């Protein structure tokens, strides 16, 4: 028998036996008796905490977290009722989720201050967190956060059903003074490849809504000293997936600014 083929087979067998041994280490933290799944990575002075959008599990940060872990400690987690975490108590509004996040970080022995990163509806939750626990926050990145919370009252999704309440809580929450804050506004390209004529019409129809949202972001950021707006035309709503590098660089900027502020 051909020796080189046998060697190749031995190597293939070795790879096959090695593959099952690779695994991620998730942390399970108990909050009010419910297990939440958490993935902690990296090391650094700052702790970057990611808050998911509506629906996807912590894996939605899969293109961002490994890069941020190179310069900071990172924490992604599944909110109660999301991914592999157990369901949480109702109502699933901003206050409840912010409290659960604080308890989860405490249970995982991750002390403040935190740089908070929230995508979509997660943006509302980190605003509530910052307003409720201002001393625990050292920086914020809002990634195309939810702005318009109308029209979801009849949703069966426990978070969407109370999203108006969460939005109101976020509006009432004051961003701690001097905390670096950057908002990424994803405006999306006007023309995308592969779009059918029906899709082009739909995109053109939705354009005014996107413009209204952009103006609202700008008006809100004008009220916060030092806040910065980044408008990207190269991404839709899923910025952490479509433009992960932009998110990573923005977090790097905020982590650096937060570090400088703490040293002062």
């Amino acid at each position, binding site marked *: *028998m*051909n020796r080189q*083929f*046998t060697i190749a*087979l*031995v190597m*293939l*067998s070795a*790879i*096959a*036996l090695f*593959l*099952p041994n*690779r*695994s*991620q280490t*998730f942390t399970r933290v108990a909050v009010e008796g419910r297990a939440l*799944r958490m993935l902690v990575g990296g090391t650094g002075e700052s702790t970057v905490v990611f808050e998911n959008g509506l629906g*996807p*599990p*912590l*894996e*939605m940060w*899969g*293109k961002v977290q490994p890069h941020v872990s190179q310069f900071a400690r990172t924490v992604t987690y*599944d909110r109660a009722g999301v*991914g*592999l975490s157990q369901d949480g108590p109702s109502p699933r509004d901003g206050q409840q989720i912010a409290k659960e996040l604080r308890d989860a970080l405490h249970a995982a022995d991750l002390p403040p201050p935190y740089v908070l990163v929230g995508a979509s509806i997660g943006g509302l939750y980190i605003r509530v967190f910052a307003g409720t626990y201002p001393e625990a926050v050292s920086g914020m990145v809002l990634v195309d956060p939810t702005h318009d919370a109308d029209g979801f009252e009849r949703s069966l999704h426990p978070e969407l059903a109370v999203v108006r309440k969460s939005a109101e809580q976020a509006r009432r929450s004051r961003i701690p003074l001097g905390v670096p804050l950057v908002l990424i506004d994803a405006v999306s390209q006007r023309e*995308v*490849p*592969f*779009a*059918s004529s*029906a*899709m082009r019409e739909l995109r053109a129809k939705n354009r005014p809504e996107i413009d209204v949202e952009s103006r609202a972001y700008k008006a809100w950021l004008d009220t916060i000293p030092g806040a910065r707006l980044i408008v990207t035309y*190269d*991404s*839709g709503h*899923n910025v952490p*997936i*479509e*433009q*992960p590098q932009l998110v990573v660089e923005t977090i790097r900027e905020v982590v650096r600014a937060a570090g400088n502020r703490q040293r002062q």
Partner: protein
Amino acid sequence: MRSPTAALLWEIWRRNRMAVAVIVAATVTGRFLYYAEQPTDDPSSLITLLSMVSFLFLFGIFSYTEPSGTRGIGSFPRRLFTLPVSSLQLVAVPVLTGIASVELLYLLWLVPLSRGGVLSAPFVAVLLGTFMVFFQAVFWMMERLGPLRLMIAGAVAVVVYGVGLLPSWPPSPPPPWRSEAAVGTVGAALAVVVFLLAWRHIIRLRCGGSVRSAYRLEPLIASAAVVLPRRRTPFASPTAAHFWFEWRCSGLVLPALVGGVLATVIVPFSWLARDDASGSLRLLLGTLATPIIFAIPVGMAFARPTFWSEDLSVPAFVAIRPLTDEQIVAIKMKVAAVSVAISWLLVVCFVGVWLSLWANVDAVSQLAIQWWAFHEHSLLSVYGTVTLILITGVVLTWRFLVSRLWSGLSGSRPLFMASVMSAVLVVIAGMVFAADRLPGWVLADPARMVGVVWLMSIAVVAKCWLAAYSWRRVSARHLRQYLLVWGAATTCLLTLTMLLWGVVRIYVALDIYRFQGFMILLALLAVPLGRVGLAPSCLARNRHR
């Protein structure tokens, strides 16, 4: 017996008591399970499986054929020709009993099966009766085609099923020409015509007319064959001659089946779905799956020494050829490759024309845009993925055509049947244990994923060492050639699975490293490695006994 009809009915019952017992047992169990389980929109997979088993056995009974030789599906029972009954009775009794039985069985399964269904019960009953007539006519009138009749009956079933879906296709309500009443009437009228043809055929047989004489088209085909260009140049080598022989015997089947389904089922449905975005996407996926699905049953016949024969011994015509066993196996694999290439060419040409001319591409373009956005706006990623999907389709189709060569060429019926049954069992297990829910079950608990990945890892190691064992007698040249094919196919599959992994890992809660291991092992298992090495040695034993 009081009457000839009673005698014929008694004969059907006497010869099929076991099958009837299975039908009764499956039906009773299915009904019992139905009442035991919670009401949902769809019947459970086990109930669906039991209903399929009972209907399959019923159609098995009413194929109403008897083997004329030692093996095979057989033909209309010639011994009944001596009975003092008219030919009409001889044909009508099994046809009408078949229709009555299938309607009765449908009635018994009506409640569980109609849960969540959109077609009315009378319409389904008409379709079942129509199919029973077509099914019997195929088996009686095409007896010269041997086992191919099973494929034709399957194709007729697909067509009847497709026609049955016409009234439920959007818009709702459908236009009059494809309402249930119109389609049912046409089906019933066709069934009557087919019944008359079958009756005429039996009369001819009974009068001493041969099967051959029943085919009026044959002289026409023969004269056409004379006129058509035929090969006159000698073959360059025995290998070329055998390739041509294999191609004519078995290579054309898959392209013909794929082309037939495209023309008779997919083209009409693509036209009906021209305004429906999600329907077009589903049809596109079905079209791409067609060659792979057909390759599974065709591969079972392709693995045998002679495609159309149920005899597994190597025919003398092939055995005495001046070719080594390795060469014969290599030729079969090349024929399979050409067959797959032509089938996929048909699919790609149709899809290209369809998508550019009359398809509603909204859902497809939405998918393409998401893929483009996910890969950081790379057009190359979209075109590359499409290319990889097509290559993977070709690889999988070829894999299903050749993967049973070792058992088919061995000449051992138990081994071949075990190999075939393993595929059937996988399908049945997939239905009983609801394979569509399997990913959810595995992902729900990370510990399950660990077990699955370890099982696959052990399977890959076993595959490697089986390959090492089977390669002992294979020449280095053939081994190098095959490993080149295996390497290219596996690399392609690995690339596609890694692309899919990159997308899925963002949306599904799981351990990404274990999932990556799972995908890599899956790609390594997909293309056979050792079984192909076994094929020449299996053929050698069969050829020289």
